[in-house]
């Protein structure tokens, strides 16, 4: 009886752990029946292009949430990153004191944008660790600051038609929004980053320290984990991921608009949570998050193809997220029950 019970639990556990993947498959089947042309190559590539954006943001977000924090500034960094990159391509960097304007090559523009993301992440991390500000508040503040600067940068205008100039040698911005061998570059970057950050999370001491801090910060500190350093690095990772998304989105549109990325932080959080990252900290995987990002992408684009209104899309997305967290809670309870059982059997 008890053996049967425990194997039932194990089966339930396996199903629960793979739940996001199951949901993804169910959604794909559902939309392919309901919407014409859903299972076409074009649709899949379009979804992939969109998912790349949420997915990369969600990678950084997963790190932050595993430490028990939150990063609300990612969407604003996307906007600011895109504006800075767009400005550099369109207008270059004017140094008034020397009376010159410098135009950077595309690789340098990319590096500068990424460095900007890292610096904003550093600011988040320093505010949180040095001044003991709750992550929610610190990153909320930085969100406004970054969004403000995105608008200040162009006085609210859009940098459009980011082709660069042959004479200046800064052409090729469209690469990040293009396809290589039929696959969107953004999607390739997503896969590369997902693999790298998954290895970092699972195979390095740094990754373990991320988990330890989210599990029990006090115990981690007393075990010698450099809590502040790890937290700062985690927000820098999130900042860098956001800057990368800024580059890709601006390239996909061939334009930088200061409002780009507004409320994308919510998609990133939703993807991480759908993928099994616990808002309480200490639990999460990059693989899960990527699947979560795909679920969100499929819901978004699938509903558009079905002609569901934008407003109903919001309602459905919200319900899916709540459902995911309820299931997560269920899994946690089951896990606790199984731990108790193991404890009793050891007696």
């Amino acid at each position, binding site marked *: 009886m008890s053996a049967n019970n425990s194997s039932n639990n194990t089966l339930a556990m396996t199903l629960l752990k793979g739940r996001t993947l199951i949901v993804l498959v169910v959604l794909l089947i559902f939309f392919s029946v309901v919407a014409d042309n859903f299972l076409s190559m074009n649709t899949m590539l379009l979804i992939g292009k969109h998912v790349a954006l949420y997915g990369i943001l969600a990678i950084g977000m997963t790190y932050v949430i595993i430490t028990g924090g939150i990063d609300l500034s990612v969407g604003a960094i996307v906007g600011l990153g895109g504006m800075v990159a767009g400005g550099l391509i369109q207008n270059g960097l004017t140094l008034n004191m020397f009376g010159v304007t410098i135009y950077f090559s595309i690789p340098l523009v990319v590096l500068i944008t990424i460095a900007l993301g890292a610096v904003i992440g550093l600011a988040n991390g320093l505010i949180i660790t040095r001044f003991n500000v709750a992550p929610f508040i610190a990153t909320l503040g930085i969100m406004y600051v970054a969004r403000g600067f995105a608008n200040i940068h162009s006085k609210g205008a859009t940098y459009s038609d980011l082709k660069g100039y042959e004479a200046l040698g800064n052409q090729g911005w469209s690469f990040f929004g293009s396809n290589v061998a039929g696959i969107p570059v953004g999607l390739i970057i997503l896969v590369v980053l997902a693999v790298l950050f998954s290895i970092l999370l699972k195979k390095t001491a740094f990754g373990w320290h991320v*988990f330890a801090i989210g599990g*029990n910060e006090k115990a981690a500190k007393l075990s010698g984990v450099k809590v502040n350093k790890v937290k700062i690095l985690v927000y820098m990772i999130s900042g860098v991921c956001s800057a990368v998304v800024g580059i890709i989105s601006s390239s996909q549109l061939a334009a930088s608009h200061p409002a780009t990325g507004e409320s994308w932080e919510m998609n990133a959080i939703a993807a991480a949570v759908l993928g099994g990252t616990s808002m309480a900290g*200490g639990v999460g995987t990059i693989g899960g998050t990527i699947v979560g990002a795909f679920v969100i992408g499929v819901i978004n684009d699938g509903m558009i193809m079905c002609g569901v209104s934008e407003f109903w899309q919001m309602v459905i997305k919200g319900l899916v997220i709540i459902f995911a967290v309820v299931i997560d809670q269920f899994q946690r309870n089951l896990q606790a029950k199984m731990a*108790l059982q193991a404890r009793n059997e050891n007696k």
Partner: protein
Amino acid sequence: MASMCREGVCFHAEGVSKIYPGTKALDNVDFDLLTGKVNVLIGENGAGKSTLMKMIAGIEQPSEGKLYMGDEEVHFKNTSEARKHGIGIIHQELNLFPNLPVYQNIFMARERKKGMGMDNSYHKEQAAKVLERLEHPIPVDTLVGELRVGQQQMIEIARNLVEDDLKILIMDEPTSSLSEQEVQVLFKIMRELTAQGISIVYISHRLEEIMQIGDHVTILRDGKYVADAEVKDIDVPWIVKQMTGEGKSYPKKDRAIDWDKQEKVLEVKDLTLPKSGGGYLLNKVSFDLKKGEILGIYGLMGAGRTEVFECIMGLRPEHTGDIFFGDEKMDIKSISGQIDKGFALVPEDRQREGLIQSMDIGRNCSLSAMKNYTKGGFVDFELENEKVESQIKDIHIKVADKRLPILSLSGGNQQKVVIGKGLLTNPKILLMDEPSRGIDIGAKTEVFDIINQYAEQGLSIIVISSELKEIISIADRVIVLSNGLKTGELKGDEIQEETLVLASYKGHHGH
């Protein structure tokens, strides 16, 4: 009606069982709760005493069997139903609101209204009254989070006492975080309560205390009833024998080593730590530690014991005084720096400070020593695995699979994981804060064995303990702290219960 409560019994459990998935936590147990007595439940961790207690308090419901109160069969769906019958419970893990003041904690969910608002003057007055009765006149506006654990425990007791209708009070290890002095106050209060006809269910691992305060003991083992007896008819060895099935006792520590000739590994000179709001947590405390020595630190709650460790581990940068490691004066910067130098800490509160609950057993073990197992940032899993495995074997942690969650282990084995985590860093000095707190006798003995085993191998160990018998049996030398002052240093035959207790009060002038 044989099933009802007999004369002098206020609560009767008949043939109760509790079945959890995969195990029987309680197996057909009969239990009588004597009116106006201190009824002690004894058993090792997992013996079923907590389960039985939870049934009486309405937290758990029996899978089989019946509960009677007076002549009436009772079914408690939850704690508030039990509370209506006059049953109160004080948990081992405190259930307080650290963000709220004392009087609000005491009256939480039993507030008295005055018009639209709360009758706070009544709350404060009554809270002050009940605390006065507990001999802990804590200002009722103090936030509970600012109180020491011992004081918080008193608040928990006060919560149960403000109700007039209390018939049964269940106390789960109420003394585990109290000082000797606070324990005596508590016992006095328990006597007052029983004199008023209140029946107490008392759970404790401290057998000496049971002999002092208990009237009647019931012993459980592996979920089954083993024996019950009047305390006046029995002694500690009898209890231990019933609990474990065999006799266990700890002899006094006596090693034939000339400590004067041993190399000095640590010297603390004039360690001083100011208290916020004036006074000192530590006032010019000096001591040294020899290689392979087990140094005990004894003292009451708030004597400054844990603070000594905090200074050494770099958690109190505001301290003054010099700490020498060997011959070298240490520049203490951070806890990770101290771990690199060869210090390891086993903190007092296992759940809050020792374990990462979301990680498995193996990773909890290797967390501190992680950087020794990495190459270019990447963890060498084979090496890590091997080290953890050998540590688990070395200190006999009972695990089926080290990838199981840490909470699947018993309290004693969890504690051994925390100790193992410290040992894996290959420390030269191990600091242990109350290493046997809240674990059963069997596990306690095993923890002592670990301490002795590593001391023999040359590890220098400092052990903080508030249990007299424990410190006598484990330490080569004991320093006593009292109110931030060092009031005694005892070795060999000088280490006696009386001398320790005497020294532990010396720092309190005017008391």
